[in-house]
């Protein structure tokens, strides 16, 4: 298993597309956040707004790391290496678990690096101006949620890649569902059932992205959102695993 894990990580490291997308997932928020810190918060307390801003980048980072997950599986099919992968490791479940763990490690490490690259320069810039911010309990929850969201979205990407077997299909599904389709579907359902609260059942926007938001009385609690979103991702992960282990390569 260790060999398969090392191999999967090596495959990700030696593929230009995955490296570029992972770097974008980390660097884009860090650059924007650095510039914001440089030109904003010139005075006063900024604690809540600063962490909330980091949280706002979580969907971007998460979706980009989801694309890394997609590429982790679809590139094998587009380049034909899936045949060698499965000849080298005929136990397909082992390959699936190795891909899952690799994607998870990459997404957790990348999202933590993103947080580090956002917060450390910001702290330095702000402290040089005598602007202070302290981490409070809800801030820690948001930071933790950024990592959780990235991890789940990357698993979702990997699973969609295994279902679709092609990058365009899987990336379209990964990006279009949470950004456009989910809003439309739940918007129509809300109209049909005359219940605006239905949106809290939207798996990604209503729960996944909500992990990093402030909570109101009408929305699910953090734990409910996490459970609902992780169940949604788990369904696709199981579907991806079943198709991967049963389909002809």
């Amino acid at each position, binding site marked *: 298993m260790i060999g398969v894990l090392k*191999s999967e990580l*090596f495959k990700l490291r*030696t593929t230009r597309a995955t490296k570029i997308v992972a770097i974008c997932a980390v660097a884009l928020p860090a650059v924007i956040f650095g510039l914001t810190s440089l030109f904003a918060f010139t005075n006063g307390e900024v604690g809540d707004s600063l962490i909330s801003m980091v949280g706002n980048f979580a969907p971007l980072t998460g979706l980009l790391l989801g694309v890394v997950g997609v590429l982790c599986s679809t590139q094998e099919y587009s*380049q034909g290496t899936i045949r*060698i992968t499965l*000849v*080298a490791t*005929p*136990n397909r479940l082992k390959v699936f678990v190795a891909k899952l763990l690799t994607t998870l490690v990459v997404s957790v490490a990348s999202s933590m690096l993103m947080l580090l690259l956002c917060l450390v320069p910001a702290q330095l810039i702000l402290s040089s101006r005598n602007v202070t911010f302290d981490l409070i309990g809800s801030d820690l929850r948001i930071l933790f949620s950024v990592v959780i969201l990235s991890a789940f979205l990357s698993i979702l990407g990997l699973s969609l890649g295994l279902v679709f077997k092609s990058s365009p299909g899987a990336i379209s599904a990964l990006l279009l569902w949470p950004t456009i389709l989910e809003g439309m579907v739940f918007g129509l359902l809300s109209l049909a059932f005359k219940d605006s609260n239905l949106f809290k059942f939207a798996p990604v926007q209503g729960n996944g992205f909500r992990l990093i938001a402030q909570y109101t009385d009408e929305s699910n609690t953090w734990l409910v959102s996490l459970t609902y979103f992780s169940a949604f991702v788990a369904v696709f992960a199981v579907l991806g695993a079943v198709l991967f282990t049963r389909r*002809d390569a």
Partner: protein
Amino acid sequence: MIVVENLTKTYGSKKAVDNLSFSVAPGRVTGFLGPNGSGKSTTMRCMLGLDKPDTGITTFDGRKYVDIESPLTFVGSLLDAGDAHKGRTARNHLRWIAMTNGISASRVDAVLQMVGMEDAARTRVGKFSLGMRQRLGLAVALLGDPKVVILDEPANGLDPEGIRWTREVMRHLADEGRSVLVSSHQLVELSLVADDLVVIGQGKLISSGPIAQFMTQHAKTWVRVVSPQFDALAELVIAQGGTVERTSEGGDFHAVSAVTVGDIAAANKIVLHELSPQTGSLEQAFLDATDASVEYRGQSTTTNVWDAPQP
């Protein structure tokens, strides 16, 4: 030893492989022949567990492929030279494969040298010619120093030196006691290296056994005769049930043996300048054996298809 038993694979309503059974003995090169679409590649994929057969089983020294620990060290395969990420270097391509089966990095360098690609080790696969990719594919097959080697069209895209080298590699592997199964359309090449043949058509077994046995069963034989009294001899041979085909220097007798023709000539004091038994080529024998099961056939150049309107 590879044993394939009752393998059947269906795609939709099409039976790609139909109750196929054969074996590949150690120490021998076994050629795997069949027309396009006959199910050779599907059979190989089923053997390696890439496609799931409807029925049947393949064993390697009595074990199923999926049950072999570090399978690359037991079975090496080349199914498609294009199975490599175009953005990775040749060395990195071999390294990730080696990692899965605990094969050392020094072995990676050794096989790169073996296939003559040490200078291209750090070149991206996307820049390789088909021949170089084929060599890289062979390096993958040899990576684990396997006891069994399965190669699908290994000489595709290789230059004459590369084809000869591939032939020598296969012979060398078999001489070391390994089982080698190789599919190829280059029948002349295959006839130079194969000990046994497995011939299939439309997924079904047509012939399996030593190449000499296949030739005896399917190759045409005739007797070539050059004689100043050919016409007289021809009349006598036809009377014995033979048929005659005239050539510029003499003729070919079919349906009679060289012994019979020689005896007739001796009994009738007919002078012979040449009396030689002839055997058709492996290519002709293959075409004759698989004629009934050819699925995709090109149009003859003598038909009107070549006069079809231009786009």
